[in-house]
């Protein structure tokens, strides 16, 4: 190592709790941990657990929908299952998985030894954990919530849903929402104050940039949800009338409050994914990201615009042409910074030397799938098209193309990319490829046909449907695809468990990567770094490995 490496490694001013304790105490070690790596891994396991639960729920739902006029599930069970599926996947699968990767890798990527507030970090995780379990306790307490994941008023009121489910929905999401907010505070402080000395904002890895932007999004969006949840609780428990039209409240108010959170939320679930891919495309194309400033700038643009688009969820609520047209303009506009990123990544790959690891395969598939989901999303920004297609299966198809084809593909890509660093073991690439193809084929089989079902007049959230021409066969195809995805997830779990138990040892830098997390051991020690290499560009580790081709030393290759 050169003499330049002798830099201070940022860490919390209080010495990291638990550092002096043996790190081999089994379960107790995990429960009591304030180490960002252990907390990150717990977030990821929690996410996998809920992925399985939410997956089982939706397989029951798809079984019910496999044929017309089916009576495998009654309406009551069906409504609880689809509500829990949506709520689980959004709040307890995608969110914790994103926060898991962020908690694990943000400190490592900025050359820090831990998050700014290690204890707050643990609190954030356990809030999410108990929020999830509180939500699921509703099954034992008399019935799960049954008003859909966006829980519209007045269906969420006591006289329309008298089982305690929605109370658990409110308190579960409130708890995990507080965890999400505290985690975001922690990320902001960590990123702004704990970067290794010479890492400026312009040298920050794009994943860290996206987490920073995302954390501000969370801070601004979640209060609206949390307030709305408290208002529902007050309505249900203390007979307040926030959302009850008969008592002078407004049913539409809930939609404003929910979507003012809910639309930023979908960007909260995709911006970090843009960050993950902005790390992965360069590594496996052997090129720098195309338009670093542009990716950061469009991320900020998305974050700002995200708060001005919520009414496109409400075009059919009768707010009038003027309001609708305003939000149509903003919603169309947000498609631009989102869409151009696809071309940033394509341009990153262009002229590169592409290695088809499983992480990269998910990246390439993402480009195509996310384009489908993005384009179908733009059709909802166009009010007249929205008026035909909103609340049909076309929406179901759209949101799964962005949540699965976008968010989940990104998380899976990140999993295959970072697993060796986190566990010190390699995920088997051969069976990983099997998983990839099974999952991609299953995913498209399930959801492509749902675009057609929506256009053919099938409303979403129906527990059964009449035997109209084409409906039966398309639904059957969709269900078959769902089972394919379930098999793929089974295979993924097998791959993970096998890797943890008996996977071959991972090198410290298996992908010849660019960022600081690959400079330490796999897995990192409890103390991440003793020393950190100099950071003079966005790819410090590459500069270090190839000093004569270093980014900071190269005559600008930009703008030609």
């Amino acid at each position, binding site marked *: 190592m050169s003499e330049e490496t002798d830099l201070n490694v940022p860490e919390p001013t209080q010495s990291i709790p638990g550092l002096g304790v043996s790190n081999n105490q089994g379960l107790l070690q995990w429960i009591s941990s304030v180490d960002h790596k252990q907390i990150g891994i717990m977030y990821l396991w929690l996410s996998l657990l809920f992925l399985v639960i939410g997956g089982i729920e939706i397989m029951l739902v798809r079984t019910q929908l496999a044929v017309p006029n089916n009576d495998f599930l009654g309406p009551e069970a069906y409504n609880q299952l689809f509500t829990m599926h949506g709520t689980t996947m959004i709040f307890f699968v995608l969110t914790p998985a994103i926060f898991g990767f962020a908690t694990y890798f943000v400190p490592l990527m900025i050359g820090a030894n831990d998050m700014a507030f290690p204890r707050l970090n643990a609190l954030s995780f356990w809030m999410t954990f108990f929020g999830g379990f509180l939500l699921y306790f509703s099954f034992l307490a008399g019935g799960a919530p049954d008003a859909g994941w966006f829980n519209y008023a007045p*269906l969420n009121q006591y006289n329309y849903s008298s089982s305690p489910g929605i109370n658990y929905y409110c308190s579960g999401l409130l708890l995990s929402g507080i965890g999400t907010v505290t985690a975001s505070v922690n990320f902001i402080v960590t990123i702004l104050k704990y970067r290794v000395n010479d890492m400026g904002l312009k040298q920050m890895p794009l994943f860290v940039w996206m987490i920073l932007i995302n954390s501000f999004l969370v801070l601004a969006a979640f209060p609206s949800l949390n307030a709305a949840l408290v208002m529902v609780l007050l309505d249900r428990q203390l007979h307040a009338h926030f959302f009850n039209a008969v008592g002078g409240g407004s049913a539409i108010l809930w939609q404003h409050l929910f979507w003012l959170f809910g639309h930023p939320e979908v960007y909260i679930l995709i911006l970090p994914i843009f960050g993950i891919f902005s790390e992965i495309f360069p590594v496996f194309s052997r090129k720098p990201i195309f338009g670093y400033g542009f990716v950061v700038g469009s991320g900020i643009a998305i974050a700002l615009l995200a708060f001005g688009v919520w009414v496109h969820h409400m075009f059919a609520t009768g707010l009038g042409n003027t309001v609708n047209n305003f939000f149509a303009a903003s919603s169309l506009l947000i498609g631009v910074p989102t869409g151009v990123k696809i071309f940033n990544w*394509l341009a990153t790959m262009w*002229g590169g*030397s592409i290695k088809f690891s499983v992480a990269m395969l998910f990246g390439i598939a993402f480009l195509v799938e996310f384009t489908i989901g993005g384009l179908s999303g733009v059709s909802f920004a166009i009010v*007249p098209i929205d008026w035909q297609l909103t609340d049909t299966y076309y929406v179901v198809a759209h949101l799964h193309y962005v949540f699965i084809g976008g968010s989940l593909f990104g998380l899976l890509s990140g999993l295959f990319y970072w697993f060796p660093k986190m566990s010190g073991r390699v995920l088997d690439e051969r069976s990983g490829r099997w998983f990839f193809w099974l999952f991609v084929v299953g995913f498209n089989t399930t959801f492509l046909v749902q675009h057609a079902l929506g256009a053919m007049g099938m409303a979403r959230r129906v527990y059964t*449907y*009449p035997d109209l021409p084409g409906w039966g066969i398309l639904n059957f195809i969709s269900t078959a695809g769902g089972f394919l995805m379930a098999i793929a997830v089974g295979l993924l779990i097998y791959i993970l468990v096998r890797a943890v138990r008996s996977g071959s040892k991972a090198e410290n830098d298996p992908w010849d990567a660019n960022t600081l997390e690959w400079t330490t051991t796999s897995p990192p020690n409890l103390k991440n770094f003793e020393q950190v290499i100099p950071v003079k560009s966005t790819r410090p580790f590459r500069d270090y490995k190839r000093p004569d081709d270093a980014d900071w030393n190269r005559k600008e290759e930009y*703008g030609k």
Partner: protein
Amino acid sequence: MNNFSVLLSRFTDPTVLNTASPQAEQIRSIGNGFLIAATGIFLLVLVLTIVIVVRFRSKTTGGEPRQIAGNRKLEILMVGVPMLLVIVFFFWSLHTMSAIMPPVSDHPADVVITGHQWWWQADYKGTKAVTANEIHLPVGKPLLLQLNSADVIHDWWVPAFGAKMDMIPGTNNNLWVTVKRPGIYEGTCSEFCGKQHAWMRIRVIAQTPDEYHKWLITQSTDAVKPADSVALAGEVLFGKASCSSCHSIRGSDANGSEGPDLTHFASRQTMLSGMMANTPANVKRWLTDPQKVKPGAHMPRFIFNKDSLNALTAYLSQLK
């Protein structure tokens, strides 16, 4: 259920392509424009991805490729082209919306449609006609529908007519529709509204103005006193067994307002919001155990004996 499939086959398929109103046609034309643009963009991404993957796959020989970190001109193009498309579609959307949703001002509603858990009520303004689930409309003239809700949020959607509009408690929403051709049009409630959201289907019967007026006059009349004794017994029972506290049958003592108006119940082809054909057998099945037929429906189970069931069925089935 067999004669129900016969009924179904007479429906216009409820797809967004079977347009039957100028509103739906306008939406379809912007939809087609969007589909073309979107397909273009998708193919561009797909072809680029395939070309890149094939052309730039890693070769075992050779070192690192040229390290290019951006290109201003290309970046401007990447933003400029989508911006242009966005502007085009924004103004197209603006234009379409003012065409399909012109101001209502003080135009009176032609029909007031109210969503209930889980059925539709139609009040024909200026007449005594009230009906449920099967909604008759005249073809050829612009109609203003007023949309209300009696409980939770419902949503009116007949794909052949184009637009979709929520029914929100405490709010009056409006929708213009001009039906071009007579026929039976199927639609469905499109906002999740609870247990039987699935069986809140819409059936619009569009008629020529003449037929429509004839229908409206019949519907405005009171129910005729039953002729045979079994049906007469049914009428008496209808009042005594508290059916009448929720249902109205004009011309009898029944004047409840919670459930569907049954004055001309037997003139409808389907029952329970498009769930099944309106046959005496189905009526009887429903009366025997509503919760088994449509779980969650707000009709309680009255434990009728066999004779009562027959009497009520006979009574309801002759309310033409």
